[in-house]
């Protein structure tokens, strides 16, 4: 088996992985695990569950590599797989209320003031997103982080187009109320 290193392109790694070289797929996991985890975290609002779902998403993606179009970037496809997995999971179980992992996500002590302010601002945005009801989080995730159109979101969530707009605009209004004072 060849050993595709860290310099290999996503396309090369995917080709190796398609031939059954799981180590090549492991390198793709290393590259995208944080962004995929964040998709799951934003949708579930729970860190531990997000980690489990992210790993499951990678395994699911590996099983579907044959259907992946090599001419398209791997990252967005991978995040879409994760989003679909989370949405399916949210639809079949009652989602837990979002609880932010304060312990881990707080800005580190001792950082310069400006950096800490930026981190706190970012954290408040993330907290505001996680505080949204699950169906609002879903449309925010798919529109703002997965860049999906209204029609695609309606299809993914299996809801009418009017509901997509309603959820999305309402979610933005709530976010604006929560973090509006920080927008400048």
């Amino acid at each position: 088996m060849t050993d595709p290193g860290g310099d290999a392109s996503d396309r090369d790694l995917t080709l190796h992985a398609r031939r059954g070289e799981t180590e090549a797929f492991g390198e793709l996991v290393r590259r995208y695990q944080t962004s995929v985890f964040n998709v799951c975290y934003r949708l579930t609002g729970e860190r531990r569950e997000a980690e489990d779902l992210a790993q499951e998403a990678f395994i699911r993606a590996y099983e579907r590599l044959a259907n992946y179009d090599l001419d398209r970037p791997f990252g967005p496809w991978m995040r879409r797989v994760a989003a679909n997995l989370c949405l399916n999971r949210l639809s079949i179980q009652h989602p837990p209320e979002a609880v932010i992992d304060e312990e881990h996500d707080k800005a580190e002590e001792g950082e310069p003031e400006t950096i800490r302010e930026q981190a706190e601002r970012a954290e408040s945005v993330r907290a505001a997103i996680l505080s949204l009801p699950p169906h609002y989080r879903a449309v925010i995730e798919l529109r703002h982080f997965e860049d999906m159109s209204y029609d695609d979101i309606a299809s993914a969530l299996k809801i009418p187009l009017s509901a997509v707009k309603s959820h999305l605009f309402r979610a933005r209004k709530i976010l604006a109320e929560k973090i509006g004072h920080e927008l400048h």
Partner: protein
Amino acid sequence: MPNHLDDDTLNEYLDSALDAARRAEVDAHLTACVDCAARVEKLRLLFTAIESAPHAPLHRDFSASVVAALQERHQPAPVLLPQLRVAFAMQAIVALILFAFAAPIAMQALPVSETPQFTQQVFDAIADTLAEWSASLALARQTVTNAASALNDLPLPALSLLALSLGGLAVTLMWLVGNGLLITQLNRRPTQQRI
């Protein structure tokens, strides 16, 4: 100035969800209306804040566990344990020995008076059928007949019913041990690794 743009329109404008004609109208309105321009700018800042939110940190690298799970799922068929191979071989050997001793006894025990030359009749019928199919299979008939004769010539060992029972018990024990090992090996392989 005509009516201000509603919130839905501003959202759809920034989402690039308006058709060209409607978008041109909104562009024209925003150029002329300071209030709506301020509202759309505030909404744009919200979009930026949402999309620029940094990733939550991931505190562990789970690539190794994903790779391990994939290798677990896609590993080749398991190779039999050495103990299992020995158990299967012993099973086969004991079964053959037992058969070799039991067959003559069983043949002798057949009620010969009621079914005279039963074995020979069966062999003959098989040989005849084969011979009808092809002349080349005549050799098979001779072979089968010879085998039957040789079987009849075997010296009968002095085996009691107790010895036969003990032999059967040995085979049963070997069978249980072999399958027990097989089940143990299968149970040792989880169907899905917890990751």
